[in-house]
């Protein structure tokens, strides 16, 4: 069979292969445009480092496109101005907890929606998808009132709890589990007397690791970047990274070298994550698009 197919392909006239743009080696123009685009994408990061590595007044007078030698000096001033390490630790703690919780709870719910039968499954799933379009951010006023009432404002719990599971996560895991976990396997486990939770743990979880990892990366980044709610509910003594950066910038005299040293320092960890996991992030976005 395979040989027949192969033969047919080789018989196909050459010009057919040129039908689609996707079959052609792209021209230099294509590469040129893409390079320009990526340079444009990277430039603000470089600029941030440039400003951060010079003296503010000096750099303003004679800007240069080469890094200066004062980055560590500026960085240590950042450490004096804001509780940088505390903010970094808080951000890691908040994003880490949220990520773990979103992945576990979304996978559980996704497993139930994809593989278990229960009354109301269809309508409930439609409800989950519908909530994707609800701008829940607009409910922050009562949320703030509640946090103030319970005495939680200023604590990390206030930024963790509202984000413990997301509609997107449930939807994403449901889509993946529906294809990735064979019904027969679940059935066999059940026949063997496995409890539901053991089926989840031993059959479902191992099969969904790639999707769970992607969901984890996205959740982490979203949580890391969250700003409006932490700004409202946290204070300058116990901030996340984003809130601390805002405090750095909001003084009346703004020293650009100081502020951009802060942004550079806050950006480096996430850039490292990107370099390590970028391939998965790209794959995640593209898969999500096709399925969603």
């Amino acid at each position: 069979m395979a040989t027949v197919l192969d033969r047919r392909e080789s018989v196909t006239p050459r010009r057919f292969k040129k039908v689609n743009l996707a079959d052609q080696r792209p021209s230099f123009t294509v590469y040129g445009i893409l390079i320009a685009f990526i340079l444009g994408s990277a430039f603000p990061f470089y600029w941030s480092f440039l400003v951060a590595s010079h003296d503010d007044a000096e750099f303003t007078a004679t800007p240069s496109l080469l890094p200066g030698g004062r980055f560590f000096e500026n960085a240590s001033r950042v450490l004096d101005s804001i509780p940088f390490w505390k903010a970094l630790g808080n951000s890691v703690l908040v994003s880490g907890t949220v990520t773990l919780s979103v992945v576990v709870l979304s996978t559980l719910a996704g497993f139930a929606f994809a593989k278990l039968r229960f009354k109301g499954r269809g309508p409930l799933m439609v409800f989950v998808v519908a909530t994707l379009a609800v701008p829940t951010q607009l409910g922050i006023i009562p949320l703030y009132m509640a946090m103030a009432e319970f005495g939680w404002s200023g604590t990390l719990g206030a930024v963790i709890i509202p984000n413990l599971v997301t509609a997107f996560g449930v939807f994403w895991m449901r889509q993946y589990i529906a294809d990735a976990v064979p019904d027969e396997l679940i059935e066999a486990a059940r026949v063997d007397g496995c409890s539901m939770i053991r089926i989840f743990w031993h059959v479902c979880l191992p099969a969904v690791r790639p999707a769970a990892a992607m969901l984890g990366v996205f959740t982490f980044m979203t949580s890391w970047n969250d700003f409006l709610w932490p700004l409202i509910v946290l204070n300058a003594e116990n901030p996340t990274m984003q809130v601390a950066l805002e405090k750095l910038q909001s003084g009346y005299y703004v020293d650009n070298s100081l502020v951009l040293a802060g942004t550079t320092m806050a950006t480096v960890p996430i850039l490292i994550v990107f370099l390590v996991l970028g391939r998965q992030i790209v794959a995640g976005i593209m898969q999500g698009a096709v399925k969603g």
Partner: protein
Amino acid sequence: MTTELTVTRGRGAEPRPPRRADNDDSTSGKLSLRHRLANLDVKVSPYIYIAPFFILFAVVGLFPLLYTAYVSLFDWELGADEQPFVGIENYTTLLADSQFWNAMVNTLSIFVMSSVPQLVIAVMLAVLLNTALRARTGWRMGVLLPYVASLVALTIIFGDLFGPQYGLINDGLELFGLDRIDWQSERWWSHAAIATMVNWRWTGYNALIVLAAMQAIPRDVYEAAWVDGASKVRQFFSITLPLLRPTLIFVVVTSTIGGLQIFTEPKLFAPAGSSNGGATNQYQTVVLYMYQSGFQSFDLGYASAMAWVLFVVIIAIAGINFLLTRRLASSGEA
């Protein structure tokens, strides 16, 4: 072990057509405790697994949203002893509030300046990425770079680039013999600057989504078109664009929901002093005004009314977008 097997097999023979052995407790009276527990497990587990989402959504999503509507009917000041009921007064005040309309126009203006170019560039970028590039993943990661960086950090960086006196962008304009632009105090230029940040951040991300959809289009459709003598451009407008319709709708609707709630960029665009959208509110957005009313003036009732009006506007515009995108993207088929 064997009994369990028989039980399961017996179920399979029942008239109900489930793909796997579903429990049915008509016989549970005869079953041992262990079986009854197992049946309970099968029945109850799904609800336990999905419960966290529904409980959390109810508590931190739905309830606050509805309670916002309730609060909006009161003169609700944070810390005040009593909150008098004022009916729709907050809404009538809001609709007559020129600062609110200013914020609404700013939000829509920034939204249009950011979403339209973003979508067009994303589609073009996707076309380029859909060629047989060497090191494909590298290019894809490259265009995604802006998406991963922290929004607060980037906004601060862009604020510096767009600085009116010493900003690099103005230096560049001058170099080309153009006039410097006051990116912060000129209303429309400030919108353009903020839209630039949004575009810069999201274009690559959307390009990847569009690219994924492009790759899902079957090859033979293009081959047939090519045989019929359709040009590349014609193929793009008659095949690619219509088939991208669901994806474009998805991108447009999600960018509407996000774009109309824009907050971080205008909040941090210029340092201090003018941090609520500029000295004359020239780039204050609705969420920023809401933040100012609620958490700086502590007028929670008024801020809640604003939240609800914005909620309705978002749903309405997302709906219009949905219909419009469907129409536009399908016009190629006609």
